[in-house]
């Protein structure tokens, strides 16, 4: 169950011809898939494409009506392999994941898929996680397209263009027997816009028909000698077919005047930023009229040599705008022009930066430099461009930089992973620091303050594998952390199996929060919820035992910091050899609250007796050392300045967002911190017995309190 309900968005998937779809880019893609008569969809969740998966998971009735099969793939590799259904049968399929991380995982299947080629349209929607807001290494997915010969679409970042790219993509795939990747960047995935919908289409050829009428053709399988034939077929038939299709259908677009001294060649995804820069230079207006000829490559790969040659011929120079390194297209463009002896100068990464996101100022600077070298006269009537530098150079603003703190991501309020790392901190204080290999997932935030735990991250499900070299005699053991998502994605075999087989003498900590939490709370194998469409509740402990781990400990309540600490200590010090696996399980608090809070509010409304817990700090008792915060980092546990003239430092304070997870109390108890924390149990709708007991207790306690107050001589407040 995803953390958000997509009920409303599911309604958008039902829109018919002529109706206006309003919403996010990634949801427009989802709708476009259905409009294209897709027969099956798979994928692995991850920013920025999680919503595509989430909506389809919630859209069972729509999918059923259309006869579309939707699968939550175990990994990107599984998703890519799923496309093999389109190899022998004319069924359209689409898969999605976050790239380049996911494309890396999928690349084995992708190579095999593209070698044999497809009959049914095969579309891979990749969320290009590049630039600001990205959470992964900065690489281009472009390389995969080139090396495996998969076509790559990079449409202009508006909903109609993106939707059209999906529809074109399937046709291109079928016309050239080649899988097609559709790349959308973070901002485009989250862009809000609108397009005119079409009716959804049932698949022309269904999976059922395929299953009941199996086809096989040895020549389509990657085995010698067919693999050599594939290479030939790719280069001699499929490539020209694709080029022809792109040309004929005019997938790439020309804007601006037909002739010009200079021109700009850009990937579709760069179009809006280029237009904004031209507008600021006085060379375009906001409605798309440009004084500079523009060639917009909605197809990033393959290049259409003829179109490029036609565009560049007669111009003194063109600017190639592609984001990220290396400058594949610029190099190719140079080769194309060079081979035909065309003297147009190609500019690109000489005026634009090699790496990093092409933000508005970067784009503006690059384009201005290009034009000022090659067509200076164009800039004659240049309006003043927006320039914040005088402001930024002022001492007042410079002083601000020292004051404004960075805001790194961290664990949510009440996160069950917090106590795990608090316990690890405590063990570290006893046994000294250890080498800690981290994985991918929420737990990775332990690397940041206040925990500062974790040395490396090598990929999803690879945490323990990345500690495998440290399997030597030493006074300390390596610790590897892996989430439940990573565990099922790849970790069981690549990390745990690897550790068992190689008798790895380290500690493997599996953080089990019942969901693929970092990507939005999707169900996975070991989720505890009952999901009618998936088989959940598969035990991680059974899995690791089944694969041969002998030393396994299950902790069912991660908030028990003392137990967590003791178990970790045992794992690090036991004489037993081989991998020591600790499975620490508690439900992701974000998802738990989404599940529990409505129930709680309903119960309160119905007059039922319910107890809400939250924590607080006695500020008189708190001395303002903040040791508790260094073992927590909870957004709800903060500091506040007091008006007490005898206190210099701000005291700890807990705000109303506290969910009463228990970490504050457990940590202050286990770490022997201080007695300032209290837990308040607030009984809503108390019954007569509650009220009676409370009255009795109140009578005794109140009498004692009054007795003392009467004897005490103090200043009035």
């Amino acid at each position, binding site marked *: 169950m995803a953390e958000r309900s997509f009920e409303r968005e599911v309604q958008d998937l039902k829109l018919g011809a002529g109706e206006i779809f309003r919403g996010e880019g990634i949801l427009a893609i989802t709708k476009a898939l259905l409009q294209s008569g897709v027969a099956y969809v798979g994928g692995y969740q991850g920013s920025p494409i999680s919503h595509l998966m989430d909506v389809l998971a919630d859209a069972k009735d729509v999918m059923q009506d259309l006869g579309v099969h939707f699968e939550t793939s175990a990994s990107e590799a599984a998703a890519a392999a799923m496309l093999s259904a389109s190899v022998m049968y004319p069924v359209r399929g689409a898969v999605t994941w976050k790239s380049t991380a996911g494309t890396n995982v999928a690349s084995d299947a992708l190579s095999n898929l593209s070698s044999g080629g497809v009959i049914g349209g095969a579309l891979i929607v990749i969320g290009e996680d590049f630039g600001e807001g990205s959470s992964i290494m900065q690489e281009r997915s472009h390389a995969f397209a080139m090396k495996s010969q998969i076509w790559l679409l990079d449409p202009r970042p508006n909903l109609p263009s993106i939707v059209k790219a999906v529809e074109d993509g399937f046709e291109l795939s079928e016309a050239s027997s080649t899988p097609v990747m559709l790349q959308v960047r973070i901002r485009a995935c989250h862009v809000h816009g609108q397009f005119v919908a079409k009716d959804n289409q049932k698949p022309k050829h269904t999976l059922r028909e395929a299953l009941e009428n199996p086809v096989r053709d040895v020549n389509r399988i990657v085995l010698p000698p067919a693999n050599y034939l594939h290479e030939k077929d790719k280069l001699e038939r499929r490539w020209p077919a694709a080029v022809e299709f792109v040309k004929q259908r005019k997938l790439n677009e020309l804007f601006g005047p037909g002739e010009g001294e200079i021109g700009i060649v850009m990937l579709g995804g760069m179009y809006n930023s280029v237009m904004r820069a031209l507008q600021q230079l006085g060379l375009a207006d906001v409605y798309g009229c440009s004084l500079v000829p523009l060639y917009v490559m909605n197809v990033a790969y393959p290049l259409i040599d003829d179109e490029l040659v036609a565009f560049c011929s007669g111009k003194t120079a063109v600017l190639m705008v592609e984001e990220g390194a290396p400058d594949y297209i610029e190099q190719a463009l140079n080769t194309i022009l060079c081979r035909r002896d065309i003297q147009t100068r190609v500019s690109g990464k000489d005026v634009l930066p090699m790496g990093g996101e092409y933000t508005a100022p970067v784009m503006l600077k690059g384009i201005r430099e290009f034009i000022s070298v090659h067509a200076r006269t164009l800039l004659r009537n240049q309006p003043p461009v927006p320039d914040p530098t005088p402001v930024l150079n002022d001492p007042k603003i410079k002083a601000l930089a020292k004051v404004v703190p960075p805001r790194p991501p961290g664990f949510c309020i009440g996160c069950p992973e917090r106590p795990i790392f608090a316990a690890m901190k405590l063990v570290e204080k006893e046994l000294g620091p250890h080498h800690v290999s981290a994985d991918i997932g929420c737990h990775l935030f332990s690397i940041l303050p206040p925990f500062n735990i974790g040395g490396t991250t090598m990929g999803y499900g690879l945490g323990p594998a990345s500690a495998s070299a440290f399997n030597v005699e030493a006074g300390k053991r390596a610790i590897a952390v892996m989430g439940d998502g990573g565990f099922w994605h790849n970790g069981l075999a690549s990390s745990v199996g690897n550790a068992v087989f190689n008798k790895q003498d380290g500690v493997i900590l599996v953080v089990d929060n019942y969901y693929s939490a970092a990507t939005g709370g999707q169900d996975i194998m070991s989720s505890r919820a009952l999901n009618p469409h998936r088989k959940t509740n598969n035990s991680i402990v059974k899995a690791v035992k089944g694969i041969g781990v002998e030393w396994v400990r299950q902790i069912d309540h991660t908030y028990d910091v003392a137990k967590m600490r003791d178990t970790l200590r045992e794992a690090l010090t036991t004489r037993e050899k081989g991998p020591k696996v600790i499975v620490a399980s508690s439900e992701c608090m974000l998802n738990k609250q989404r599940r529990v809070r409505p129930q709680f509010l309903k119960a309160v409304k119905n007059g039922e007796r319910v107890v809400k817990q939250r924590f*607080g700090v006695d500020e008189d008792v708190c001395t303002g050392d903040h040791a508790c915060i260094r073992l927590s980092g909870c957004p709800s546990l903060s500091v506040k300045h007091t008006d007490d003239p005898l206190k210099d430092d701000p005291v700890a304070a807990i705000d109303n967002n506290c969910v009463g997870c228990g970490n504050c109390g457990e940590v202050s108890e286990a770490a022997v911190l201080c007695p300032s924390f209290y837990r308040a149990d607030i009984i809503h709708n108390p019954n007569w017995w509650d*009220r009676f007991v409370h009255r009795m207790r109140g009578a005794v306690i109140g009498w004692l309190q009054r007795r003392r107050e009467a004897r005490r001589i103090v200043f*009035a407040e």
Partner: protein
Amino acid sequence: MGGQGGGVLTDWIVALAEAQGFAAQSTSVPGVAQRTGATIYYIEMLPPRDGVAPILSLMPTPGDVDVVIAAEMMEAGRSILRGLVTPDKTVVIASTHRSFAVSEKEVPGDGTGDPRAVVDAADFAAKRTIAFDMEALALENGSVISAALFGALAAAAVLPFDRSAFEATIRAAGRGAEASLRAFDAAYARARDKPRDDVAAVPRKRLDPLPDFAGHPSLDRLVGRIRAEFPDVAHGLLFAGVKRLVDFQDVAYANEYLDRLGALVVRDREHGGAADGFAFTVAAAKYVAVAMAYDDVIRVADLKVRGARFARVRAEVGAKADQIVYTTEYLHPRMDEVCGTLPKRLGQWIEDRPRLFAALDRLVNRGRRMRTGTVVWFASLYLVSGLRGMRRGTLRHYRERLHREAWLGAATGLLSSNYDLAVEALKCRRLVKGYSDTHARGQSKFDRVMAALPLLAGRQDGADWLRRLCQAALMDEEGLALDGALKTVATL
């Protein structure tokens, strides 16, 4: 837009613009996945021309932004640093409340950023600023901050839409519309009437004037002593100290405090304190009170069982009249604390026998969750707090006294040679705080800083150096910054 509530606000603004015939486009960039990193939202809107939709950018151009909305003070600062706020164009709408970053909270001292720097910067960089505590205002109206920000945006009159169009947008969104409209109205009115809050770095410390009548003859005598024996400038802190110590122990203990301060003020006068505004006496008034009201088991128990505390907890957790509240305290007493609370000789006798101490520690040393609202737990804490009468005879009291006198002796000894350094030496007491290990760590930092005194005594700038040492000691838990600073001092 940055900060909490940006998603809802973005949806509202886009819906508003579209309802008014504009083409609107929003994008967002989540700060690492969808978790607690700050998500930034960006909106562009423009009417279409002859049916042609405008081409809108997916990211802001620094220097080309009309409105910046920050749902938190430092978020506004971040926008300014990104160059999004310029004097020719940008209206800044910011909530002045703070939500502290981890780097601000985790510091053992005070690591919070000064919001006045943001105000100064905004005043310089923005065309106009609307800044008040919209979070509090939203809460007062039973809503969330997005509604208040939307109200402030309407009042700012930067978007070419009527107030009624804003309200219609909220109504159309449905859920919680009533509360949202209340917060919207309140923020609208507030942004019109008083668009700016005064922002202070920290709230003012409460220094009460000396009362004419304190309600009891013995208290009146204490107040009388402050008035008669001490310079005016120290009265506020002395009164705070006296109040704390009467509360901590009794009237006699407060008198002891005044006696001790009396001796110090004499020395202060001898060394020309009058010319320095009695800085030594003022610092002593504060820190001697803090030192004398040390945090022991008796005090913790005393604070936990008070009637006023029960009422305060109810208020803090927002309990309604018909709800019942029970608190659970998380205490972890060790044998150290028990020995400290025993009569001096008995406590020492046990401490001198490590095996006995360890055996007893095994009995005592564990976390105890005390339900203060139940009779048995309350009674036990009540009994412990009742040990107040015996406090002066405890081992802890004896040790605190020794430590205090050594510290005061060292500081007083510096008066003749280096007055400023003597004052700073008093202020070093700030380093001693917390309980158990934390207390020990604070104590050791204090000791290390004080050990540098001989190196600094002869230096004109000794006080500055000592202040730097103190600041360094409060920067991190392990004292790494302090180590570095001490090395520097050693090389002077």
